[in-house]
């Protein structure tokens, strides 16, 4: 592929983006063919999926049209936990070239797998993501997503390379070094979580660097929800175009959907990931345009096919044509979830994890609440715990030890540092019915 003829600043089009512009009828053909293949693959290789289909008296032949997908059972996050670590794999380990992991709901991580082909598809959809965000050969991308078990770093890395951009694999954290690279390496694009970029903006100010004076042109942000207000702030403070991208490890990582120059919804790469919207309470399918929970099916995944995976993210599908010309349907930016998962600095945290940690230390569950704030662009999580007679002591040192043990247990289970505060009994508001465990003051 002679990308140099296509993919420079003047040309602005990479052939990898071609599927973005498939005519709808052709796209549906591809989707149906791939759907039938992936359902057959999961049926053959994943016992859990096979049992569920057989229980309903279904075989893969039941898929005659795309609409038949609604007959298939859902997959949920706890399925990954219950089959930990490798129970949903559809490929033998000999064909698996990569494993990633992310936090689960109760401390056990979930593990995801990729074959060689899966890694190539991932690079392709991330290349299409960066292309949709206006990147091309010659761009210098500072990749500040974490490299490691988290899918963000490596996912973005291979995608940007596939596009022909220059990648600086700086990974997450170490703000001083980020600023040095940003200032000295001629960086034209940067990807990280939006909250971390706001933090970078503030720290740049502290050291007298105005990001608007740098060649930085594009910011690609994902792994946590952010608002349009935050986008405006980022764009005016840093002089960049800020794009929202979407993905989740269970499906592939980043690269499921991306904004384009129109910044008006995220195009789902639906030749690989088939989107549906359902009513989160009844599970019933909803038509395009209606708000509900996003359900995704991997159409081409080999190592770990996900059939009708419930993302818990609330959005709606936009099927109207986009001004950019892409025929891929879009989803509205994710603002909330149908469960209580919190995304903080790209890490998924469930209140149930915090409860498990408190229970582990105290033996009984004290009243608690989680308070999320954003300080200088960085998300902070505080946990307030009411002091109980069981842990209270007349000695300061003993109480400090309790506090440290609680904080440590939460850190171990959630993988995130917390500010643990002991508070007086009966000071945390009791509500009738479901307790309000999470106070989010971040103004997302």
């Amino acid at each position, binding site marked *: 592929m002679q990308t140099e003829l296509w993919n420079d600043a003047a040309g602005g089009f990479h052939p990898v983006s071609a599927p973005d512009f498939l005519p709808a009828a052709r796209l549906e053909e591809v989707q149906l063919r791939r759907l039938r293949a992936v359902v057959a693959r999961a049926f053959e290789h994943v016992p859990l999926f096979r049992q569920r289909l057989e229980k309903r008296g279904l075989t893969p032949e039941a898929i005659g049209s795309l609409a038949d997908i609604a007959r298939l059972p859902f997959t949920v996050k706890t399925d990954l936990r219950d089959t930990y670590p490798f129970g949903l794999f559809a490929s033998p380990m000999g064909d698996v070239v990569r494993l990633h992991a992310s936090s689960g709901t109760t401390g056990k991580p979930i593990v995801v797998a990729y074959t060689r082909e899966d890694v190539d598809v991932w690079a392709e959809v991330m290349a299409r993501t960066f292309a949709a965000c206006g990147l091309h050969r010659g761009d210098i991308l500072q990749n500040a997503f974490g490299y490691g078990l988290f899918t963000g770093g490596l996912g973005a890395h291979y995608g940007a390379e596939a596009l022909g951009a220059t990648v600086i694999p700086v990974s997450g954290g170490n703000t001083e070094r980020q600023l040095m690279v940003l200032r000295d390496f001629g960086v034209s694009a940067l990807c990280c979580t939006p909250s971390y970029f706001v933090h970078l903006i503030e720290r740049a100010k502290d050291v007298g660097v105005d990001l608007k004076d740098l060649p930085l042109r594009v910011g690609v942000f994902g792994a946590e929800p952010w608002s349009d207000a935050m986008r405006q702030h980022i764009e005016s403070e840093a002089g960049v175009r800020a794009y929202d991208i979407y993905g989740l490890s269970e499906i592939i990582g980043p690269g499921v959907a991306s904004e384009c120059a129109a910044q008006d919804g995220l195009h789902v790469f639906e030749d690989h990931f088939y989107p549906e919207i359902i009513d989160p309470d009844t599970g019933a399918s909803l038509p395009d345009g209606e708000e509900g929970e996003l359900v995704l099916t991997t159409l081409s995944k080999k190592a770990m096919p996900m059939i009708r995976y419930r993302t818990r993210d609330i959005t709606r599908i936009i099927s109207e044509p986009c001004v950019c010309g892409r025929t891929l349907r879009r989803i509205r930016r994710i603002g909330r979830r149908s469960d209580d998962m919190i995304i903080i600095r790209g890490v998924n945290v469930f209140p149930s994890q915090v409860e498990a940690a408190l229970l582990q230390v105290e033996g009984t569950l004290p009243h608690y609440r989680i308070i999320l704030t954003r300080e200088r662009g960085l998300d902070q999580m505080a946990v307030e715990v009411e*002091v*109980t*007679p069981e842990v*209270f*002591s*007349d*000695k*300061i040192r003993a*109480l*400090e030890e309790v*506090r440290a043990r609680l904080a440590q247990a939460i850190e171990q289970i959630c993988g995130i540092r917390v500010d643990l*505060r*002991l*508070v*007086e*009994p*009966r*000071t945390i508001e009791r509500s009738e019915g479901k307790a309000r465990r999470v106070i989010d003051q971040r103004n997302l």
Partner: protein
Amino acid sequence: MKLQQLSLFLENRPGRLGAPLEAIAAQGINLMTLSLADTAQFGILRLIVREWEQARQVLEKAGWVVNLTEVVAVDVLDRPGGLAQALKVLESAGLNIEYMYAFSLRRGDKAILIFRFEDPDQAIAVLTAAGLHVVDAEELFSHVA
């Protein structure tokens, strides 16, 4: 020989100290003495009162977590070196003080030292053997009768 001390958990923010003290005062309970230990985030209020059972009930009913601890009171002469003499006895016996506080009596020339030990009975034996005077509740509160 031991005294009952009430401890309360308080958050370290304005106004938190007043409420429990008012609740006790409303019952006509007088404070013999108190001490406040604090960190940046929270504090522990320790109280010595004659009617400790009643005070404890009132405080717990109002929602505070109350801890009951046995402490040891020693009286010393209210003059330079009074405390040092008692400390020397404890030190030579190898007894560790968890914490302590002190106050002077309005009448007489005595100061009262309140000690929290891991093993109060052992401490009382050591102090008494060294000729120091351990004050029990009856005697202590007779000073304010």
